[in-house]
């Protein structure tokens, strides 16, 4: 692995070395490393690009890393990864995609991750997107996540995109059975002329299932962000979504929440707020001795933490 790839790996997965546990590293469309464990198997799909991850029922405290690296300018790919998580598991899955584009062509990674989360299983899924490069080529990333949660399954998803992705359209879909829970936390910051679109749709089908989506974003310069969420309450369930955006410079932010209650005991809430950094927050930090620029950086850093 060269220095560029190592750096990207550090940015997206916090990895300095080869990770412990199961992993699959994909670099420029090819497998660059794989390790399986007694409980976690990773196999290459035969019909199309991508892998299948099978986690045995009852697997606890194990992790899977599946980073993707694009360092050849102009590389474009469409990948399908499926996760089969057995009953009663408690696992962490760390995905992420980093692009280093120093050429003039568009680099693009489209990924569809489908999760089949077994009964009573708990999954923490962390996804980080990062782009860099000194060329004019665009970095494009379109991740789709689909989650099927069985009874009392719990999926916590954290997704972060802080830098370097010129265009992204992220779609997250979920279908939940009784007692299942889906938590999504999304942090996005866009710069320059970047565009980020988030689409979220969840069907709360089972009794006492719940979804909680929290999106925090900062739009700078002339970037554009769109947030669409749909929560369908089809049973006695709880759904909450929150979209909180800081708008700066000449950016544009759209938030469009939609709630549909198909059941009298569906409790659905949406909160959306878009606004610039509150003047009093800047003033407070300046009275502590920070300059305006330092205060702004602290406020944004805290907001996206």
């Amino acid at each position, binding site marked *: 692995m060269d220095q560029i790839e190592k750096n990207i790996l550090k940015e997206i997965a916090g990895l300095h070395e080869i990770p412990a546990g199961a992993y699959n590293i994909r670099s420029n469309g090819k497998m660059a490393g794989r390790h399986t464990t007694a409980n976690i198997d990773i196999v290459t799909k035969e019909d199309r690009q991508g892998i299948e991850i099978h986690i045995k029922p009852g697997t606890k405290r194990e992790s899977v890393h599946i980073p993707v690296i694009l360092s050849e300018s102009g590389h474009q790919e469409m990948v399908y990864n499926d996760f089969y998580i057995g009953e009663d598991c408690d696992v962490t899955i760390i995905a992420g995609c980093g692009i280093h584009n120093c050429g003039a062509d568009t680099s693009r990674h489209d990924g569809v991750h489908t999760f089949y989360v077994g009964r009573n299983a708990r999954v923490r899924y962390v996804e980080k997107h990062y782009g860099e490069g000194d060329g004019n080529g665009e970095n494009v990333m379109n991740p789709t996540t689909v989650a099927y949660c069985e009874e009392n399954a719990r999926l916590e998803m954290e997704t972060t995109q802080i830098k370097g992705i010129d265009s992204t359209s992220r779609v997250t879909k979920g279908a939940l059975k009784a007692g299942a829970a889906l938590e999504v936390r999304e942090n996005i910051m866009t710069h320059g002329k970047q565009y980020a679109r988030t689409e979220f749709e969840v069907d709360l089908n089972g009794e006492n299932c719940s979804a909680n989506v929290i999106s*925090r974003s900062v739009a700078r310069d002339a970037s554009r962000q769109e947030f669409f969420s749909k929560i369908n309450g089809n049973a006695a369930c709880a759904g909450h979504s929150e979209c*909180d955006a800081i708008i700066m410079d000449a950016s544009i932010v759209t938030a469009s929440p939609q709630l549909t209650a198909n059941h009298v005991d569906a409790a659905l809430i949406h909160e959306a707020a878009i606004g610039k950094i*509150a003047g*009093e*927050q800047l*003033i*407070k*930090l*300046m*009275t*502590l*001795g*920070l*300059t*305006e620029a330092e205060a702004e950086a*602290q*406020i944004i*850093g*805290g*907001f*996206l*933490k």
Partner: protein
Amino acid sequence: MLELKNISYEVEGERENREILKDVSLSIDRQFVAITGPNGGGKSTLAKLIAGILTPTSGTIYLDGEDITKKSITERAKAGISYAFQQPVHFKGLTVRDLVSLAAGRDMTVAQICEILSEVGLCAKEYIDREMNGSLSGGELKRIEIAMILARGTKLSIFDEPEAGIDLWSFHSLIHVFERMRKETGGMILIISHQERILQIADEIILVADGAVSEVGGREEMMPKLLNTEGACSALMKKV
């Protein structure tokens, strides 16, 4: 020493400009000075002018002989002025640890933050990773606001109505915070307050009313006057 010379502050009104402060001159060099007076009299405006949040329409402000009138909020903070807001500002994502560290201007260990929070009667363990927002009560937010000022430890600390917005029980323990600060802090404390118990520990009391300083004096001289205001509405006085 803090000196205000001929400070006026006007805001634009619909028909004519309104004068919030009229030609105020003051010099503050005692250790614990309280500003009191009726609501709307210009006390908070005075504090904000000193901290640099507002700029006077005319007049000059000196800190230890240096003209700071044109200095920014940041420059004044660095020159040694701290200001505790009447309404603590909420931050999404910034924790008590973050804010106390920013106030101190350096990374603080848990033990150091614990030391400062305990000064205001809070246990660090419970609060250090809490966000500075509405999940904390008014009294808790106020104490953290004060803790930030303690963490700075500057030569002039201004507190704008520390008693506002908190319950009686929290207020009682806040009094102790100020009593202790009075004993232990080396810097000057300028406190805007309506509370008798705070006024009672002041070296000097400044009465600000109707945009002007109407009286200045030591607490022995001022307290009886404040508690027995001549010319107050007699019907009202009978009831209070």
